[in-house]
């Protein structure tokens, strides 16, 4: 097919000014741009034609040659198109999904239909047997209840109560599924499930590390130097432990089996107690002793940090 006269394509008369050409092209290109009219074949053809006409007429040298009849309208190479449509509609198009979040919009369509069918919307046959929807809840659980297990009462929005047995060793963010506690099914379908996301509130001194529990306890100078029995807390209650003589800040005591109790086939974890020496109130005797004791046999504990001896 022979190309149409580029002036005619742009709706201009020969001898139109550069400004008129530019204006006419922009107006038509905006209207027919294929990325603004995806799937509209006539618009795409029209855009190609408009682009080709503009390319020819906006180049003074080529326009002059055309005006002189040296080249014809079809002798020009088609401009290189970005072909955004081809990319945007392929699987890689999700790279430029509108909200920028990963993995969302491909999912949405499924969600729309799941919701539609769940509600028994006009799209679903009226007597179709359908499973009820799942309901999502969050439940805040104290640190120790999460470690040892507990039964917690969840109040549902409709005023119903649900007693949730939190198993020992549950972790923050874990989701419990209570079968049949979601929305009722339709036409004899099974009820949905309640999905309960557990939020564990942090403890003032216990920290969880897998199935181990770590915490710090203060000890006096005398307890650290002379050693002896002290009472420490643990998730399962207070325990008596022996501090070895000549212990220091940072020394760790392992209490075997005193961490998270055995659960779900995993053996019980351990508790790790880290000692922290506190000086506390100082009396004259200690002060005098330390002054008379110079030089300190411990030397400079900061050597290696400052370059001093």
């Amino acid at each position, binding site marked *: 097919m022979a190309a149409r006269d580029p002036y005619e394509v742009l709706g201009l008369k020969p001898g139109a000014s550069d400004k008129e050409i530019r204006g006419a092209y922009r107006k038509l290109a905006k209207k027919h741009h294929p990325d603004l009219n995806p799937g509209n074949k006539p618009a795409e053809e029209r855009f190609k034609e408009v682009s080709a006409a503009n390319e020819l007429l906006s180049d003074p040298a080529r326009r002059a040659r055309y005006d002189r009849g040296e080249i014809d309208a079809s002798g020009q190479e088609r401009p290189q198109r970005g072909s955004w449509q081809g990319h945007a509609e392929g699987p890689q198009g999700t790279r430029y999904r509108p909200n920028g979040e990963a993995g969302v*919009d491909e999912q949405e369509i499924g969600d729309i239909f799941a919701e539609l069918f769940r509600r028994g919307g006009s799209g679903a046959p009226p007597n179709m047997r359908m499973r009820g929807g799942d309901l999502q809840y969050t439940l805040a659980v104290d640190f120790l209840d999460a470690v040892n297990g507990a039964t917690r009462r969840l109040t549902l929005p409709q005023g119903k109560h649900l007693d949730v047995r939190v198993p020992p060793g549950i972790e923050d963010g874990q989701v419990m599924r209570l079968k049949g506690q979601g929305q009722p099914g339709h036409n004899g379908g099974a009820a949905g499930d309640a999905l309960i996301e557990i939020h564990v509130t942090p403890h003032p001194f216990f920290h969880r590390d897998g199935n181990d529990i770590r915490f710090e306890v203060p000890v006096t100078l005398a307890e650290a130097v002379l050693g002896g029995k002290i009472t420490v807390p643990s998730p399962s209650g207070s325990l008596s432990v022996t501090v070895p003589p000549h212990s220091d800040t940072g020394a760790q005591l392992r209490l075997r089996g005193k961490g998270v109790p055995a659960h779900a086939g995993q053996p019980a974890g351990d508790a790790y107690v880290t000692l922290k020496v506190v000086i506390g109130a100082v009396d004259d005797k200690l002060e005098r002793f330390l002054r008379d004791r110079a030089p300190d046999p411990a030397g400079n504990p900061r050597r290696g940090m400052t370059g001093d001896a």
Partner: protein
Amino acid sequence: MITIDVLCGSVAGLQAGEVEQWIGNAWLRAEGPPGQYRFQEIDVARVRLIRELRNDLGIDDETLPVVLSLIDQLYAARRQMRKLRRAVEEAAPDDVKQAILNTLAG
């Protein structure tokens, strides 16, 4: 994977500074930290699209984000439409397909 130099080489007159600015504006997406950007084929097409909108169609930098956002929403909707079409093609029995056609025609 395409480096910023290769990207600039494949689109006539494209400057690296421009590309970095577009990434900063969230018009263009890239992997990797600044200075080590990596691009895919679709990003080259994105650059061409942005240049066409700005240079050829005269859309200014204040309007461009609106246009890009609408284009991205349009193609997200079209991708979903395709996915839905595939689902109907693969999963729906023939009588359901016919019922859908009838509903759409009505």
